[in-house]
């Protein structure tokens, strides 16, 4: 951290304090000057076939995290929802050289456990092991990635597991609300499709999976991340040996969702539910846009932390909810904002009104310097914390790579964070968080809560019949 920024931090912290202690008999001591925080510098290589690899020497404990991200996920399923998940599941069921059991045992012998999962844009493989096994871990991950057996014999069992998980997910109010909300924001696009039907899931064949794997997995979509304590030369050699000869495969698929959609209000009945599960939000600018930092800080101030306005209102003032919160969700060059809350059934309508009231207030009136500084300090603390672990650093690097952010995005983060002004917060909230454009999902006992929702002013005219 540079000297100017250090001074800035000290100044900010002092301002935040005056408010905190105004009414107190005794006042807490002021913090000392921030200690320098040095981000480690990553290096990246690109193999001839297109595989990229990023290395980050970090930490003091003898461990290393390795993650491989492949640009293929829900986006690439061709309408067969969860096909990417089934594929990632089946990739763990053996390779040309090892059975599923041997894969699991090899990982355990290195002190780790294989993680593999499909997201909207990417499939990720990861392994966190004792440092002495760095190169072995690369070899194991590469083998699973490039030579999966995808055995037909295991598919019925895995499908049965997915059918069971689907039936459970469809009884969880948060999953139901999340799926309805995603569909409201991205209708007709894979980003909006959270669940297949049971019949659809049943219909997938081993050929569907093999076709999906063959047409989507390859070097040009693959990025390896290594962070922790490791022998750089050995690990680089392992990456070149195990992935350097892999087929190039296609470039990442670009399939952006339709530009804008009108808002939807969905009321989903859950008879007898003692709480209503709420999702309120809309699509917003993506992380490559200059205003994204302002919007992101606005989110923290509105609902992104315990001391945020909506959370303090619903929880600490009203006692209507336990852990309400807002967040920005991102996909490739896409983002959405949502407030999520499980509120006391009798307070469903009033809670929606309070959420909109807090948003409108911030749209109309800039926060004080003091409130904003406190939020920035919190974000700075989170930044330091999350970049002080192998996993956190890997996550940041993978995010930057997926979003194609500039190389200095991480190193300029704190500077850009502290440059946000109260006016920019209000401007961003005004421009991007308009309650009359927000989609709303309520999962609750409609017999008792529908009337309350009808009374919420910003929803007038938008309720389903």
């Amino acid at each position, binding site marked *: 951290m540079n000297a100017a920024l250090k001074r800035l931090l000290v100044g900010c912290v002092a301002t935040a304090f005056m408010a905190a202690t105004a009414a107190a008999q005794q006042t807490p001591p002021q913090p000392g000057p921030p200690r320098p925080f040095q981000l480690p510098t990553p290096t990246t290589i690109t193999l001839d076939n297109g595989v990229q690899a990023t290395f980050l020497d970090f930490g003091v404990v003898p461990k290393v995290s390795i993650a491989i991200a492949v640009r293929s996920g829900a986006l690439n399923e061709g309408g067969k929802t969860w096909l990417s998940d089934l594929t990632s599941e089946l990739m763990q069921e053996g390779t040309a050289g090892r059975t599923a059991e041997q894969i699991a045992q090899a990982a355990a012998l290195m002190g780790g456990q294989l993680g593999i999962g499909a997201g909207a844009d990417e499939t990720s493989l990861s392994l966190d092991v*004792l440092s002495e096994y760095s190169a072995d871990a690369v070899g194991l991950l590469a083998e699973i990635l490039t030579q999966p057996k995808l055995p037909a014999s295991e598919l019925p069992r895995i499908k*049965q597991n997915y059918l069971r998980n689907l039936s459970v997910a469809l009884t969880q109010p948060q999953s139901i609300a999340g799926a309805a909300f995603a569909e409201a924001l991205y209708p007709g696009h894979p980003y909006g499709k959270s669940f297949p039907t049971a019949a659809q899931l049943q219909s997938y064949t081993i050929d569907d999976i093999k076709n999906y794997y063959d047409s989507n997995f390859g070097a040009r979509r693959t990025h390896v991340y290594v962070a922790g304590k490791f022998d750089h030369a050995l690990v680089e050699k392992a990456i070149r040996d195990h992935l350097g000869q892999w087929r190039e495969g296609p470039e990442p698929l670009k399939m952006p969702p339709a530009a804008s959609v009108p808002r939807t209000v969905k009321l989903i009945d859950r008879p007898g539910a003692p709480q209503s599960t709420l999702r309120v939000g809309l699509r917003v600018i993506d992380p490559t846009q200059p205003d994204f930092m302002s919007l992101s800080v606005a989110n923290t101030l509105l609902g992104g932390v315990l001391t945020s306005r909506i959370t303090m209102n619903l929880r600490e003032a009203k006692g209507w909810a336990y852990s309400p919160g807002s967040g920005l969700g991102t996909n490739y060059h896409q983002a959405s904002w949502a407030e999520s809350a499980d509120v006391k059934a009798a307070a469903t309508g009033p809670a929606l009104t309070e959420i909109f009231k807090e948003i409108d207030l911030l749209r109309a009136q800039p926060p004080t310097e003091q409130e904003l500084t406190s939020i920035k*300090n919190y974000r700075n603390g989170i930044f330091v914390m999350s970049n002080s672990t192998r996993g956190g650093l890997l996550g940041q690097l993978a995010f930057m790579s997926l979003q194609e952010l500039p190389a200095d995005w991480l190193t300029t983060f704190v500077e850009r964070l502290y440059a946000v002004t109260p006016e920019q917060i209000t401007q961003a909230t005004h421009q991007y968080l308009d309650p009359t454009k927000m989609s709303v999902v309520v999962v609750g006992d409609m017999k008792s809560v529908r009337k309350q929702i009808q009374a919420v002013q910003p929803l007038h005219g938008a309720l389903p019949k």
Partner: protein
Amino acid sequence: MSRMKLVVAAMFALAGCATQQAAPPPTPTPAPAPPAKAPVAALNVPVDYYKLPNGLRVVLSEDHSVPVATVAVYYNIGFRLEPKDRTGFAHLFEHLMFQGSANLAKGQFFKIVQGLGGQLNGSTRFDFTNYYEAFPSNALQTMLWVEADRMRSLAITQENLVNQQGVVKEEVKVNVLNQPYGGFPWLQLPQYANENWYNAHNFYGDLQHIDAATLDEARAFFNTYYVPGNAVLVVAGDFDAAQTKGWITQNFATIPSRPVPPIPDISEPQQTKEKHASMTDALAPRPALAIGYHVPPRWTPEHFAFGLIDEILLQGDASRLHRDLVQKRGYTDDISGGINLLGNMFNYSGPMLWSASLVHDPSTTDAQIMAAFDENIERIRTEPVTQEELDRARRTIRSQLYDLVGSSTRLGLVDLLACFALFDDDPARINRIEAEFAKVTPELVQRTAREYLRPENRTVLTVEAGKQEGAAQ
């Protein structure tokens, strides 16, 4: 304020998940296992332990690798120790500790900590309630001040009590009452498996009990349990020891000493026959099953052996139960559990369960599941585990121990230091964990399995699915 259940993930879970085959597996040509490498140095966490005249125990653990630090205060009052007829009181009180003091109005605690870049939380567990802040290290003096401030002068109003009663009731709804498998098995299983009220009551609290709590009761609870002699303060991370000790003296040593409350008798009578219980979950679409066994006393050779049994049987994709029930038989996609579902094998003091649970299809019967489960149990009771399995389990544990130190919030590290100080008066034993595991032999594993994995020592809880298929959205 914490989710009682979900904080577990953030803690050091020696209880993990692993598997291996029960029946002889179809063994293809074995691929080469990673060769054993020269082991790296054993865990050596710096531990500076002392007591203040008022009885407060203090543990310091210095590490300057990143400019962050963690402060934690653990009080020796957990949910199983709470007074009878006030179920859920320990947890409700945890919420009240954030509601203001003589010096800070409601909300200021949150604002100060988060406004300095800190994360904070509290949680209630079997034998302790804890509070922590993880923050950029320049804020340490302030964090010590705010923790001492509430230990000295908590001030709760009727209005704030009512507010948090509301919040806690919504917490119980979101985690239990409006959730399929809510509270299964972590909240329900102990109620069936234990006999002593302290181990067998509803820890989250009946909603009527939560509503019935009064301000006077809260004050009495604070005066009884939140005394310096019943607590441990841990500071870990980037700090200057001499300066920090000065701040600790200044802030904490001036808190008056008060009597330390006795711990109630939480012992469990030895179980003599297998127990079965069944419940219907109106929100759940598929049946589920949990099995719980009483475990050996903590920090005994058998307890460490049981920790390795847990690794070998249950933790991770390579474990025996996973290999058999998930991989081979396809009864479920996940069988999980461990010693102490709300923590790990060290952060409690008293009787404890080891448990395993799974969700399955109606086409798989409870009898089928139990038969398969018992095959694995019988195998570990009758056949010695292989040296390779033992080594693998120990290596996983070593890997997890390093993560205690490598974490930026250090919550797992401060948790073990605090519990070893609070329950054992010996936080430095964190550095002896590996050595204790190293002493365990295949014979001890078998002897421990034979003694503790007896059917008479267990409770089987089945959940009937009360939700019709397809009735969901």
